[in-house]
């Protein structure tokens, strides 16, 4: 059976350390836009850690929520793309074909999660970051949209290896960069079509919830609410 990739995010475990953001930048050749552009709100983080503060100082509680592309089953970004640059793969991923993108930016307008990023300039990295680019991931030129791919390069690499070695994929064989980097194991990636996988088990939990569920986008990322609030 084809896989249906999904993720579970345990908000009880998330410490807001930001390791997932760094790992994602390194894995996916995401340009660092520089302080000037970042100040204009053009920073590109395929995964970001949202912070919510509650209460007045000194009695403050802070909550973290890592947000990446929700890989919706009914994604609003897909039907609006005039060139099929944004499209649905057989494994349920919201893929972005950079070569096909002409930069209408319609998908980013349509996305309710604001997880699609436009290359306003050609990518650049402060030295020496430009020498650590991942050869498995294309570098995007100016004028195209980019977004979280669930590390599709890792998924394909492991699938090809498994096929060559004639073995079945096990749960946990594939890890996205963010899930691998997460020290608290708050991010769990896996196949939702496998009922025994850890991500399926977590997604079925009672405290599981989707982001902006009432929009009907059917996200494949499940957030596990904090125990104290569940």
């Amino acid at each position, binding site marked *: 059976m084809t896989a249906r990739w999904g993720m579970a995010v345990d908000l009880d475990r998330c410490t807001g350390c930001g390791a997932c953001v760094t790992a994602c930048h390194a894995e996916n050749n995401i340009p660092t836009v520089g302080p000037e*552009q970042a100040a*204009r*709100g*053009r920073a590109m983080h395929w995964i970001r850690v949202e912070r919510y503060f509650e209460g007045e100082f000194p009695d403050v509680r802070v909550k973290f929520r890592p947000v990446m592309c929700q890989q919706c089953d009914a994604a*609003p970004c897909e*039907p*609006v*793309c*005039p*060139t*099929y640059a944004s499209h649905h793969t057989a494994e349920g991923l919201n893929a972005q074909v950079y070569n*096909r*993108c*002409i*930069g*209408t*930016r*319609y998908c*980013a*307008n*349509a*996305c*309710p999660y*604001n997880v699609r*990023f*436009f*290359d*306003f*300039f*050609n990518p650049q990295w402060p030295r020496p970051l430009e020498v650590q680019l991942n050869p498995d991931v294309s570098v995007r*030129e*100016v*004028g*195209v*949209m980019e977004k979280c791919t669930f590390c599709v390069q890792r998924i394909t690499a492991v699938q090809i290896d498994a096929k060559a070695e004639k073995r079945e994929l096990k749960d946990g064989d594939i890890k996205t960069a963010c899930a691998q980097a997460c020290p608290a194991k708050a991010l769990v990636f896996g196949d939702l079509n496998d009922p025994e996988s850890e991500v399926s088990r977590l997604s079925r939990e009672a405290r599981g919830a989707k982001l902006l569920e009432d*929009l009907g*986008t059917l996200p494949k990322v499940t957030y596990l609410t904090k125990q104290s609030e569940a």
Partner: protein
Amino acid sequence: MSDARPTPLPATLTEDLMRPLERTSWRFYLLVLVLGGLVVMGLSTWFYQMYRGFGITGINMPIYWAFYITNFVFWIGISHAGTLISAILRLVNAGWRRPVTRCAEVITAFALMIGALFPIIHLGRPWLFFWLVPYPNQRMIWPNFRSPLVWDFFAITTYLTGSVLFLFLPMIPDFALVRDRATGLRRRIYGVLALGWRGTSKQWHRLESAMQIMAVAIIPVAVSVHTVVSFDFSMAPVPMWHSTMFGPYFVAGAIFSGVA
């Protein structure tokens, strides 16, 4: 004009009408220079935008559309002028429309062309704009027909074709008038444009029926074009955009800006 009776015009009137076609004053060249300068300025800023990267426009996330698309909607709204004034008033036989008809129809055709430029200017990679167009290609890659931007392409080309026809039809007798007075290359060009117009009553009758048909046909096209342009916004689940209100709202807005 199609409503002129097929009697020959008084000589002085024809003389007055033809003067701008036969003589060019220095004022015209000055105007061309000034407006051409504006066009060159626009083109160079556009090339600068492509050279440096789209970021110099100041457009930002999360709403990635700004003044380019606003301009697009504005010009498409302006293009309503010709259809409304010309077609609707032609249908209700309002005589006072005659002096403004040609002007309004020209505005429609050219405002549409200007409007259609803006979605291309606003592209991240404008040199690939033809991927929005369904053209036959070896790899059988087609545009996504679910995308409102592709609907836009069809709506605007339909409207442009219709309004150019609507502009051209009543101009045929005028082309013939110029043809009869001009000489040389000009005579040949206007001869082609006049499509063999002789001014017979049969020709006048056919022209009148063609204009009636076009006037009826172009009104629903105009209404649908403005509705489709509004679909660009209302099809996206964005707060304030995602609304059934947008179709009628854009049509009504276009009528207002068109008349203005």
